[in-house]
C-alpha cells in the first residue's frame, strides 16, 4: 500500500525509528555500585521524621522508585508517549567543526538535551513524576525553582497531564528572568516570587525583611509547606536518586545511538549541579561497561569536588529532607552568584558522590572565564549557544580533545549538552562585557 500525499508517492513508515531508540527501561545504578549506598537518615534528636515527610509529599510511585534497587525500571507507556511528544529521542550529534577547530584526532559527540521544548534535560524527570502524581489522583503539583529551568519543566509536565502547577520562584530570579516566568505562565503554571505570603514560612521571612531577595532553600520550604497544607504533591528536580533514574533516558538513548554510529565512546563528560544530567547520561554507560573515563564537571566558584567533604548532609538548605551521604560544602554554604545558576548547589547526588569517592568518576572544576571561552568556541563552531551549565562540560571536552591531540590518540569523547542558552542571553551579554578583551 502506498499513500498519496500532495503529489508525492511515499512508502508508509513501518517502524518509527524514534520509538526504537527510545528506551523501554530506565537504568538504576544502585545494584551496580562498588559499595552499598549509604541510606538516607533522620538527624539525631529529630523532632519529626524527614523520611516520613517524604511519604506525605512525594507521589507514591516516585518514592518507591527512589528506593528501588531493580537494575531496570519499566517506563510506563504513557511516559514513553510523553517522551515522544516532547521530541525524544534527542539527537546525538558529532561536533565535527569543533574537532576541526581544535585540530584534534579525537571524535567528539554530544547528546543535545537542549532540543526538548523546555530547553534542558529537566523535563525527563518532571514528566514521569507528574504522570505518577496524576495516576494517584493528584490534581496539583508544586515545586520551587531557582534559575527557572526546573520550574519550566514542571509547569509543562503538569499541563501535559491536565494538572495545575504552582512554582515558587526565588524572588531575584523572578525579577531578573521574566522570560522564564512567562514560559511557565504560558504552560499554565502559577508562579510566585518567593518568599510569599502563601506560607507560614514565607510570612515569617517577610515579617523580618519585607524585601528579602529569597533563596532556593526558602523557595523549597515554601513549596513543601504548600504541598503539605493542600495535599498537593511536591516534585523533586535533582540530587535524589529517583531524578537520576529518570534522567537515564539520556544515556539509554545514547547507547542505542552510539550503536548506530558503530562507535564506543572512551570518555564521557557532563556538568554537575545536583548530578542528574551527568548521572542520567553517564551511568548507563558505566552499567554497560562502555567507556574508560568518566568526568564530572563542576564550577571553580562552587568548589564542592575539591573542597567538599563526603558526609551526611541535608540535600536542601532548609533541612526538610532526610540526610543523605554526599560530597558537600555544607547545607549552609552560600554559593557566589555565577551565571550557571544550575550549578549553584552545595552537594552532589549520593550515587555520584560514592562513585567520585571510589575514583570511578573523575572531576574537574572550571572558572567562569574559562567556561565562557569554551561556550564561545562551541557556539562559533556548532552554532548552538550552550547553557552556561553545559559550557562547563564543553570546557572539559576541549581539554580532553587537546590532550588527545598532544598524545596523538584517536579518542572518542562524548558529552551531555544539558541545555541551550537562549534564555541565558542576558547573562552571556554580561559575561561578554566583563570577560571579552
Amino acid at each position: 500500500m502506498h499513500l498519496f500525499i500532495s503529489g508525492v508517492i511515499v512508502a508508509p513508515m513501518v517502524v518509527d525509528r524514534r520509538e526504537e531508540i527510545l528506551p523501554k527501561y530506565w537504568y538504576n545504578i544502585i545494584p551496580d555500585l562498588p559499595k552499598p549506598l549509604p541510606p538516607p537518615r533522620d538527624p539525631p534528636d529529630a523532632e519529626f521524621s524527614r523520611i516520613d515527610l517524604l511519604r506525605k509529599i512525594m507521589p507514591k510511585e516516585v518514592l518507591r522508585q527512589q528506593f528501588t534497587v531493580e537494575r531496570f525500571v519499566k517506563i510506563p507507556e504513557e511516559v514513553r508517549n510523553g517522551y515522544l511528544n516532547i521530541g525524544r529521542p534527542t539527537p546525538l550529534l558529532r561536533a565535527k567543526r569543533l574537532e576541526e577547530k581544535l585540530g584534534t584526532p579525537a571524535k567528539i559527540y554530544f547528546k543535545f538535551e537542549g532540543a526538548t521544548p523546555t530547553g534542558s534535560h529537566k523535563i525527563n524527570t518532571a514528566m514521569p513524576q507528574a504522570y505518577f502524581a496524576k495516576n494517584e489522583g493528584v490534581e496539583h503539583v508544586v515545586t520551587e525553582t531557582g534559575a527557572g529551568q526546573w520550574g519550566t519543566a514542571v509547569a509543562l509536565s503538569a499541563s501535559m497531564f491536565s494538572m495545575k502547577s504552582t512554582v515558587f520562584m526565588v524572588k531575584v530570579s523572578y525579577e531578573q528572568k521574566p522570560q522564564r516566568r512567562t514560559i511557565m505562565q504560558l504552560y499554565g503554571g502559577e508562579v510566585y516570587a518567593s518568599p510569599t505570603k502563601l506560607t507560614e514560612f514565607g510570612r515569617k521571612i517577610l515579617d523580618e525583611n519585607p524585601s528579602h531577595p529569597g533563596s532556593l532553600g526558602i523557595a523549597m520550604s515554601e513549596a513543601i509547606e504548600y504541598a503539605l497544607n493542600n495535599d498537593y504533591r511536591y516534585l523533586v528536580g535533582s540530587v535524589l536518586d529517583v531524578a537520576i533514574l529518570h534522567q537515564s533516558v539520556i544515556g539509554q538513548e545514547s547507547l542505542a545511538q552510539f550503536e548506530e554510529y558503530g562507535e564506543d565512546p572512551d570518555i564521557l563528560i557532563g556538568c554537575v549541579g545536583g548530578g542528574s544530567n551527568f548521572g542520567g547520561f553517564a551511568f548507563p554507560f558505566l552499567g554497560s561497561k562502555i567507556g574508560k573515563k568518566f568526568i564530572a564537571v563542576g564550577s571553580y566558584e562552587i568548589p564542592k569536588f575539591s573542597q567538599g567533604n563526603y558526609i551526611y548532609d541535608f540535600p536542601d538548605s532548609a533541612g526538610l529532607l532526610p540526610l543523605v551521604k554526599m560530597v558537600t560544602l555544607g547545607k549552609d554554604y552560600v554559593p557566589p552568584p555565577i551565571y550557571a545558576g544550575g550549578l549553584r548547589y552545595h552537594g552532589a547526588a549520593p550515587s555520584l558522590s560514592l562513585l567520585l569517592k571510589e575514583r570511578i568518576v573523575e572531576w574537574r572544576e572550571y572558572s567562569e572565564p574559562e567556561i565562557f571561552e569554551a561556550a564561545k568556541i562551541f557556539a562559533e563552531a556548532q552554532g548552538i549557544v550552550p547553557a552556561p551549565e553545559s559550557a562547563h562540560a564543553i570546557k572539559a571536552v576541549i581539554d580532553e580533545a587537546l590532550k588527545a591531540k598532544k598524545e596523538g590518540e584517536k579518542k572518542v569523547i562524548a558529552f551531555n549538552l544539558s541545555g541551550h542558552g537562549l534564555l541565558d542571553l542576558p547573562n552571556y551579554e554580561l559575561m561578554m562585557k566583563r570577560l571579552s578583551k
Partner: protein
Amino acid sequence: MKMLVSYMTLGYPEEEQYLEFVERSVKEGSDILEIGVPPKYAKYDGPVIRKSYKTVSGKIKDIWSLLKETRERVRIPIVILTYLEDWVPTLNDFLAKLYSIGIDGLLFPDLLIDYIDDYEEYVKKIKDAGLKAVIFTAPSVPDPLIQKTSTISDLFLYYGVRPTTGVPIPVSVDSLITRVRILVSNKLVVGFGLSDTEDMRKAMRAGADGIAIGTAYIEAIEKGGVDEAIKLVKQYREILNEF
C-alpha cells in the same frame, strides 16, 4: 519451619512489661529474640524505634542485669542489636561481657554502611569472642557483597527491605526478595518496617526463611499494652505456619 524473629527494645516500655513481652512472645512462637540496646544515635532506625529508645533512656537501671535477666527467662537464641559506633573503643570488653552472660549473637546495623572497609575484621572479632555475628544487609547492598556476607553471617542473613524501620515507604517486597534469594546461601530473614500481613506472605512466597518484626510490636504496646503485642506474635506465627 519459617522463623519468627521478634525485636524488642531493652526495657520497653518498663522493665516488667518488657520481660513479660519477652517471655510470652517466646511461648507464642518467636524463634529468635532480637534485643535493642539504645544507641547514642539510632541513625538507621525509624521514628517508632527511635521513640522507644527515648522512652527507656535513663530508665534502665543497669543494662547488664536486665540482659542477664532476659537470658534467664528464655531459652531461644538472643541477638543484641546495637550500633558498632558506640562500642568501637571498648569492643573486646563488650563482646566478652555479652558472652559471659550467655547472649548468643550480635547485629550491628551500621557495620556494612559505616565500617564497610573493615567489616570482615569486626565479624572475626565477634566470632572470636564466641558470639554469633548476624549481618544486616539492605537492598542498597550490591549483589557481590550480599553473596559474600550471606556465607559468613551466623544464624541467618538479615535483609531489611525498607530504607528505614517503621516508615511505610512503598516497596515491592517480593521483587526485592526475589533478587537476593538466589544470591543468599543461608537462611534469609526479612525485616524493617514489615507489619502488613500481605507483605509477609509475599516475602514467604518469594523465598524468605523468616521475618523480623519490631516496630509493629512497639506500636501495639503503645496502643494496648503487652497483650496487644502478643496478639500480633500469635497472628504472625499463624501466617508463617501457612508455609
